[in-house]
């Protein structure tokens, strides 16, 4: 019953610690350090890292960049809304915009080519959730996120919004096609 009574010894801090606890603390500490160093290790040797590149941006400036890209590289339109599909040049910049409640525009990319993806929201927070690969990024208004992305498989991909953004949140989808 001593967990809720004062310790039996006045100098409880001087009581030696049992072997079992020392062994466990040592093992646990080693594991903690391994987990800690895995993160910088992956930055050096892994292929999936979040970039540190980001800028403050205003919706008007960003929309201008999006429109400029669409004008240059639009390849077709999709659906009743005539959403443009853009095929950016290899290694080029992609300006993707989140808004209530769509991802704009749609993209056509090539497998194993690296692009610079710019990402922001012009209204509220949104969540970039690329399916079925399951890559998830936070999209914060006012901040332009820049990441190098390299698709490694061909196919049709869907961007789901996974940050709650209001009543039609569940309809917020975008498309990316990756070609061989």
């Amino acid at each position: 019953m001593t967990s809720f009574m004062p310790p039996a010894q006045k100098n409880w801090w001087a009581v030696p610690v049992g072997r079992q606890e020392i062994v466990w603390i040592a093992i646990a500490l080693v594991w903690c350090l391994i987990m800690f160093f895995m993160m910088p290790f992956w930055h050096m040797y892994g292929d999936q890292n979040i970039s540190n590149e980001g800028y403050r941006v205003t919706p008007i400036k960003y929309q201008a960049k999006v429109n400029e890209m669409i004008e240059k590289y639009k390849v077709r339109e999709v659906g009743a809304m005539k959403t443009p599909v853009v095929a950016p040049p290899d290694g080029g910049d992609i300006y993707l915009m989140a808004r209530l409640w769509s991802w704009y525009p749609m993209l056509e990319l090539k497998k194993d080519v690296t692009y610079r993806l710019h990402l922001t929201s012009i209204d509220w927070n949104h969540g970039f959730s690329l399916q079925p690969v399951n890559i998830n990024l936070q999209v914060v208004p006012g901040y332009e996120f820049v990441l190098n992305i390299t698709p490694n498989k061909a196919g049709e991909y869907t961007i789901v919004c996974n940050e709650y953004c209001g009543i039609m949140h569940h309809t917020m989808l975008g498309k990316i096609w990756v070609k061989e």
Partner: protein
Amino acid sequence: MAQFRQCPDTGLFFHKEAENLMKANAVAGVVCLLIAGVLALLVVLTRWPAVHLLPADAFYMVLTAHGICALIFWVIFFEMAILYFAGSTLLRSRLATPRWAWAGFVLMIVGAVMTLAAVFAGKSSVMMTSYVPMRAEPSFYLGLVIFAVGALIGCFVYLGTLVVAKNEKTYEGSVPLVTFGATVACVIAIFTIASGAEILIPTYLWSIGYISHIDPAMYRVIWWALGHSSQQINVAAHVAVWYLIAGVIFGARPMSEKVSRAAYLLYIFFLQLASAHHLMTDPGISSEWKIFNTSYAMYLAVLASMIHGLTVPGAIEVAQRKKGLTNGSFEWLRKAPWGNPVFSSMFISLVGFGFLGGISGVVMGTEQISIIIHNTIYVPGHFHATVVIGTTMAWMGLTYLLIPVLFRRKMILPQAAKLQPYIFGLGMSLVAVFHMAAGTLGVARRHWDMGFAGNPLGFEYPATAYLLMGIAGIGGVIAVAGGALFIAIAVGSLVFGEKLQKEAGLLQSFGFPLADSAYTNEKPARLPMAPAEAVEADHGEAGFEAPGTFILAMVLLVSFVIYYFINWKYLSEVWGLS
């Protein structure tokens, strides 16, 4: 003149004012749990794809209210009761400034009602996190601020009580470990509430038009210093409850006061850094910041939890072995009182928190692994393991303990109470595990329709994801049933339970005197130090006092390592990102 009574079952002394405050806070907490539970059922039945009960607007409103009611109101009201218990009752001290404590309680009630009213009015379906620039009604933020001020007053009353106890020399030696843990929870709570004020007060001013702009990225950083740290209050407090229950049920003493307290200090120093867990895939924050903070500076708070994970069951094992349960590695555990809901709630809380909540939390909080988990339904899966199986079940165990001690009522439906922790634990484990599984398939959290009805583009999650969400739905219904049973027993006992008279109980066998439970003006005798441990033969094996616990700890570690690297493997298969 402070009035005290001594509980004849436990020998604990209750200061009348403190006791009334504990009762009021505990009852308010259970009422919030009831509301949260009803809302949980609606959430469950909507996210269960085959049922899909609510329309979208009602779903988001109910989800917002569920989060706030469960994650903020239920746990914090109950924490106030725990603070007063740890400060006043465990130290045999009068409570400092009971009037301030009542004022705090009233503010908490007012704030809670105000925020919930704003949500149910329908224009504040912004989720618990209320990320700007999405806007709620001003009273939504104001209610939360008022609630927090009330809780802050409670924290200071607790600290004041520690000072009173020290000055009036109500105890010998150092404060008990449970009180030490509660103090850590209190310190973290003050940090948490300060962070909350720092972000919610400006947000309130913004909502009434006084401030023009709140930076959305900064909001997330500071809000999570409130949102995540508040869950760390729970961790510190429910670990204290584990130690308390181990002490009450088994007469367990900490394996080492020094180790357990040092682990608690690590919580104070490092737990709050974990607000970073939510920001791993955010723009505008550097990797250095993310790595340092998400790992609580080299995982030192995880180390602390791993220490408690060993020393809590270890203390139980040592106590059981002293009673002669020394056969094999696990006789002490097999012959534990599994039919006693105080113990079974506590033990399920311990195991579920470690294996389901702890491991998944560290894995998803890894900077890069967050890429494949962030904002999927894996996240609610994880925190239902920590906050519901971990914290809520610890509170439930404590409630079963307090019904006779604090309220002096005999528990009704003892047979049902035996089963309740298992029903609730099983249901909530299904919720946790299957939500996590569905999250690995990309199912989004806070999402009304995984079928994306109304979007011509169309997208189908794999059929397995629907199956997993269905099983999670069944688990949710089981959990709600278990929760309803808990509330029926707890509230039923207060209303219909037989009033307890003076009678010998559990702790008289440990030498506590039998006393009448009437209030007197007499000051309790000073709380003595725990009796010194008799020098006895070592009941453990190979110099290990609690060999069975060590095996369990190694099982945890191995599961942890395997699961951790499996997730790195998954990550390595996705698109290149840099």
